[in-house]
């Protein structure tokens, strides 16, 4: 866990390029990712409870895109939108992309990010807490989830995906894969 580490921001040049990126492929990839996540982590929905019916706006503030997440057990959805065009939502979670990824991977504490104003919450606070706790408990590794997209060939993709995520993450300071705990001596 990083305690006082400065949270890296997405490069400005990349953010400008993303302004012109087509959203359909991003949404298709997002849809596949949450479908896989739902299949591999059914405990997410149990922990979300009634909050699984809510719409979450995931807002990486250093990107020109936002994501609309509907974590329903019978068909979870994640769609990308241009900022300001995502439609209505129940709860918004905003912060640098690195902070959001770091929370998913167990590198950052959500409350600490809130205290330091790196994380902004709006709307249904109960839904945000439920989502944060559900994701935290699942010990999700997005590199592993991406590898799982390869179906029966997952075993071939798993190690390269994790190594690539660790390499890029190490260079950028962004947690692209789950933090591995070393047991205390």
């Amino acid at each position, binding site marked *: 866990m990083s305690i006082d580490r400065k949270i890296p921001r997405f490069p400005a040049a990349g953010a400008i390029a993303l302004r012109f990126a087509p959203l359909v492929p991003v949404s298709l990839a997002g849809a596949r990712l949450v479908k896989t996540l739902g299949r591999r982590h059914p405990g997410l929905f149990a922990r979300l409870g009634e909050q699984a019916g809510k719409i979450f706006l995931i807002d990486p503030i250093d990107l020109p895109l936002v994501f609309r997440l509907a974590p329903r057990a019978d068909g979870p959805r994640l769609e990308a939108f241009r900022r300001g065009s995502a439609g209505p939502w129940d709860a918004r979670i905003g912060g640098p992309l690195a902070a959001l990824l770091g929370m998913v991977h167990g590198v950052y*504490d*959500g*409350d600490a990010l809130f205290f330091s*104003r790196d994380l902004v919450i709006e709307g249904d606070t109960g839904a945000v*807490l439920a989502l944060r*706790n559900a994701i935290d*408990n699942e010990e999700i590794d997005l590199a592993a989830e991406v590898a799982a997209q390869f179906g029966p060939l997952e075993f071939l993709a798993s190690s390269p995906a994790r190594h690539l995520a660790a390499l890029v993450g190490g260079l950028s300071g962004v947690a692209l894969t789950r933090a591995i705990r070393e047991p*205390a001596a």
Partner: protein
Amino acid sequence: MSGQGKLELVCPAGTPAAFRAAIDAGAHTVYCGFNDETNARNFPGLNFSRAEMTESIKFAHRRGGKTLIAVNTFPRAGDLALWTNAVDDAARLGADAVILADIGLLDYASRRHPSLRLHLSVQAAAANADAIAFYARSFGVKRVVLPRVLTVQEIAAINRAIAVETEVFIFGGLCVMAEGRCSLSSYATGKSPNMNGACSPASHVDYHEEDGELVSRLGGFAIHRVAAGQAAPYPTLCKGCFQAGAYRGHVFEDPVSLDAASLIPQLAEAGVTALKIEGRQRSRAYTEAVVRSFRRALDAQAAGKPIPASELRGLTEGQQTTSGAYRKTWR
């Protein structure tokens, strides 16, 4: 109970993942609760189903750790079964102890499960030797979690006068009230930390950005306006900013967190048995970092070495820490 043995590190877990993180990071003991109103951290998405508790207790036992189950809210009149079932299930699942606050529930547990170890919750606010002796004599309580209102000298005096173990908070959020007696959240939301297990329940909290300021409302009451760049506190009334006469600011309590790592040698000398970390509502990242830091500190203490400097301020509410009442300077 006075004496200076090896200090036990008692760590929080709000989810099974945080539980495993705590054990892996060096917790001797983990405390947690069922996912209902029977424990004082009843927040959305938090806590343990019976099946998760079973697995977690087994996980701890395989690693030589202990599990304490907090059933530390006060039963509602006419709805006792939720609380007695929690005690029954804790005993059935093999918990190493239950943490109770209510006298009726202590009586039930001591009669129904005489071999179940009972700890007195901080919610019971037992702050003197006579009160503690009553709980020990009447219900066979083996350990008391002391309220966060005592100095180290007072803790030492209590330990000299009692025959049970004491546990004290070493890190985490602070409450201004004598534990178990806070009605601020109830006033604003109708939900009580002592009865419903949720201080400032999330369902009643609203955050809004206005002109760069973070405005927090609880039950419709604006309780903070935090300027850009300033640390935000939890949305609790006790940490709110209010106007009282000519004064405008934190009327009840500043949003600072307890960090008494530097006092570990004095607490050991005062006869304390266990040190408790607050934060079952926090993530596994918090659990891992704080537990690892305090395990290092306890190992240093046991080896007679200096306590390493704490690096945990970035995780704390208000981004500031205090040694709290242990070193009272305001009297």
